[in-house]
């Protein structure tokens, strides 16, 4: 705890702290958004279409960040969108993390042909730009929330697998693993009790770095109309819709994008700090 | 005439908000043609002061607080960086401790030897590479023309140090500063490098400052020895006189720890007890006093000045309140 605090108070640590704070605020906003006194994010109001931001230094006004082309309140939509975004990205990272960690453990622990095949698979997947892979799979399966999470998990498992495998190779030969093997512990016991605890930290660092990537990817897919589907509000979709009105209503594209950037920034700052704190060697992305 | 005269050099270091005067006040000189061996443990300020002279001390955390270092009539510490740059690698050469890291891993050996020649002797790359071949031969590397196009990783540690020497002597410097050039090498290779440098020194008539922690090395190559501790000179004098009759307890301790020193058969190699002083928390008095079994009460109160030793040869000086030969007798 003391070491964490010391690392936080270093110069680079302040950025990590800032990122963590920002992320906590965003998560709280997403969790408790429904209890805030905000207009219904899906209610259209054609008489209040494309109202500019009413926020001033002194008051919020009826629509602090304005309304969109259908008269929906942008602030409510951003808050509602953060729920969907964080839920999808969080689920995808968790799923991809579990899958990638598991395969990385197997690959590193057993080695041999299992390892060769899995790592080849990683190489192949890395030869395909993520965006294209996600695009192709979503187009094939159809855009639903479940498919979206699945696809995002599918494109992110490789990085966990790589890092975890490397860590396993390093840990496998240490004394405590060797002695566990010597007293006849089963493979699953060795992996779960002795190796897993040692790979969780790097996996956590990768998860943070992946979270940012997945958020951007999701927003990109939604922007292209292949991600989160209406009426669910999503930041990417809001940007796509606002495109048409860019010359008359700048606020429609500005605020959702800002929310997206701040979220990614927060996660990146936290990830960088975690990486520096736990293991600078992971710096190679 | 003194080629290099240092007067009142003072260097400080800042770390985590604390400040230490690692060299409080250093004065000595090196005569033209002389080889001065500076001996001390790590943290004695021997390397730091050499880097400070040449403007190679990283600042911050280091800081030169004052003093003069007159080389050939000009103060190195007062001259503009551009003029100091003209001297570095030209009239003053320098060799560092670790040959494994001192060379740039991604440039050819030839290019690295040619650089100072192009810079200081206004040679073309072609001429410089020709000269580099000769230089490699001079430092005992055969087949130089072929080896010029190789990279540092293709050389052994001893070979790399030979390359470093070739670089340092490439412009025939008047003064060569060697900072522990043999420390990182195998014992057999150490001897070869030592012989090579002695030979080159005589052939090129170089003045040399040899920095080391090893008394044995100094015995082989230096005319004058200067023992440093906590940034101060503890003892200084002609090598023979100092080895025959050390006057500082610290010098005595260093000599005792030499494997071929006088010690009872089968006895253990003597080690100086205690740790080097914490420069961030200086104590009054002689800095060596806390580790010195011969220390007098005055040693703990008051730092001794460097004075001439009366019953020894000229130039033998010591900073001590006690009279070591009498205490040892």
């Amino acid at each position, binding site marked *: 705890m003391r070491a964490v605090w010391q690392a936080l108070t270093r110069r680079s640590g302040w950025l990590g702290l800032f990122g963590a704070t920002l992320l906590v605020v965003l998560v709280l906003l997403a969790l408790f958004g429904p209890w805030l006194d905000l207009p219904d994010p899906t209610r259209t109001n054609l008489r209040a279409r494309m109202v500019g931001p009413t926020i001033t230094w002194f008051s919020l006004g009826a629509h602090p960040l304005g309304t969109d082309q259908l008269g929906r309140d942008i602030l409510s939509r951003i808050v509602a969108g953060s729920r969907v975004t964080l839920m999808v990205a969080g689920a995808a990272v968790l799923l991809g993390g579990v899958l990638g960690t598991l395969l990385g453990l197997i690959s590193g622990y057993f080695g041999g042909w299992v390892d060769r095949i899995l790592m080849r698979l990683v190489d192949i997947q890395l030869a395909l730009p993520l965006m294209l892979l996600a695009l192709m799979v979503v187009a*094939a399966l159809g855009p639903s929330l479940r498919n979206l999470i699945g696809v995002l998990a599918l494109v992110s498992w490789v990085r966990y697998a790589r890092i975890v495998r490397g860590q396993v190779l390093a840990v496998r030969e240490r004394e405590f693993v060797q002695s566990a093997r010597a007293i006849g512990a089963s493979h699953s016991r060795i992996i779960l009790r002795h190796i897993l605890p040692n790979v969780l930290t790097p996996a956590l660092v990768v998860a943070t770095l992946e979270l940012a990537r997945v958020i951007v990817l999701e927003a*990109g897919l939604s922007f292209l109309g292949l991600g989160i589907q209406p009426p669910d509000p999503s930041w990417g979709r809001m940007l796509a819709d606002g495109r048409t009105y860019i010359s008359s209503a700048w606020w429609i*594209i500005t605020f959702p*994008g800002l929310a997206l950037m701040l979220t*990614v920034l927060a996660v990146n700052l936290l990830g960088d700090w975690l990486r520096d704190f736990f293991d600078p060697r992971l710096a190679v992305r | 005439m003194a080629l290099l005269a240092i007067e009142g050099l003072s260097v400080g270091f800042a770390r985590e908000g604390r400040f230490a005067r690692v060299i409080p006040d250093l004065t000595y000189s090196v005569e033209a043609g002389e080889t001065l061996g500076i001996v001390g443990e790590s943290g004695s300020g021997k390397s730091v002061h050499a880097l400070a002279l040449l403007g*190679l001390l990283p600042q911050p955390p280091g800081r030169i607080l004052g003093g003069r270092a007159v080389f050939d009539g000009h103060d190195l510490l007062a001259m503009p960086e551009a003029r100091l740059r003209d001297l570095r690698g030209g009239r003053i050469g320098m060799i560092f401790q670790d040959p494994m890291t001192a060379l*740039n891993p991604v440039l050819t050996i030839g290019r690295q030897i040619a650089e100072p020649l192009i810079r200081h002797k206004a040679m073309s790359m072609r001429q410089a590479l020709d000269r580099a071949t000769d230089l490699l031969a001079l430092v005992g590397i055969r087949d130089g023309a072929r080896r010029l196009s190789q990279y540092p990783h293709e050389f052994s540690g001893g070979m790399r140090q030979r390359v470093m020497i070739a670089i340092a002597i490439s412009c025939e410097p008047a003064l060569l500063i060697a900072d522990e050039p043999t420390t990182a090498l195998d014992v057999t290779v150490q001897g070869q490098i030592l012989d090579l440098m002695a030979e080159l020194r005589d052939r090129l008539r170089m003045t040399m400052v040899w920095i080391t922690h090893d008394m044995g090395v100094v015995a082989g190559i230096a005319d004058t020895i200067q023992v440093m501790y906590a940034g101060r000179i503890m003892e200084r004098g002609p090598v023979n006189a100092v080895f025959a009759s050390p006057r500082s307890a610290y010098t005595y301790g260093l000599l005792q720890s030499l494997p071929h020193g006088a010690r009872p058969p089968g006895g253990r190699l003597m080690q100086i007890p205690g740790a080097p002083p914490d420069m961030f928390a200086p104590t009054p008095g002689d800095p060596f006093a806390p580790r010195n079994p011969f220390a007098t009460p005055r040693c703990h109160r008051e730092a001794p000045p460097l004075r001439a030793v009366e019953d020894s040869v000229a130039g033998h000086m010591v900073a001590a309140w006690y009279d070591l030969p009498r205490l040892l007798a």
Partner: protein
Amino acid sequence: MGRFLLSRLGDGIVAIWGVVTIVFVVSRLLGDPAILLLPVGATEEQLQALRAGLGLDRPIWEQYVTFLGGALRGDFGQSFQFMRPALSVVLERMPATMALAGSALLVGVVLGCVAGSMAALFRGTIVEGVVMLLALLGQATPVFWLGLLLILLFAVDLGLLPTGGYDGPMSLVLPALTLGTFTTASIARLLRSGMLDVMKDDHVRTARAKGLLPGTVFLWHIARNSLIPVVTMVGILAGELLGGSVVTETVFSWPGVGRLIVQAMEAKDFPVVQAGVMVIATIFVVINLFVDLLYGLLDPRIRARR
């Protein structure tokens, strides 16, 4: 070196084969292409005829072999939209994508190297702070939002540049900046930290002890050594660039392969999607082959190990 190249070439071919396989698997996940191809209300006989025509009634491994053979010959079938071979439709759009991705890479490498060097040279000053802040923001800004903002500022408000389209060098400025920003930011951050590490190395002190001019020390003993990780990074970033080009082309109505793929997806023109994905994956593999080659040229230690 020759053997190394050959083995990397082998890896590349395996990777492309893997991508073909992924594309095949995904295309079979689509369900029955025959239903998609025929207008609603087609009879069962028509469907059967089409399935036979497409070879969909044969065993899956046979279909795979056929698909692989086709891919090898560059035959991905006819585009449903254009009624021409899919590959030729894709290749027609290549110059636009190459122009965009190429200039974005150029922007990224040049700006990134300049910014990263500045930050390292002026470490501890406001210059480093500003560059690093911009780089952090640049890495966090999604490509499509940045594109929209640039359009808003330079095209809508200032009216200096076109909002989109493919019409002369002026129309390239905004898309290239948009796509190049992430690359710029990543390279700047990597180069700065790399340079700060190298500056501490002993060999830099040696270079200074030789009396070399500061410019020589910086270029040959600091920058030269720090470039090696940057080159690796470019290989990774090429993937981000090609993926990002899909979105950027859509934002700027840029007639490249990325936008073609998106449009083909909407139109369910799968041969074009497959051909497009294959072409981009191949480019990516080739770029990484070059990166490996360059890496060897820059670092003699790697060259020796091979």
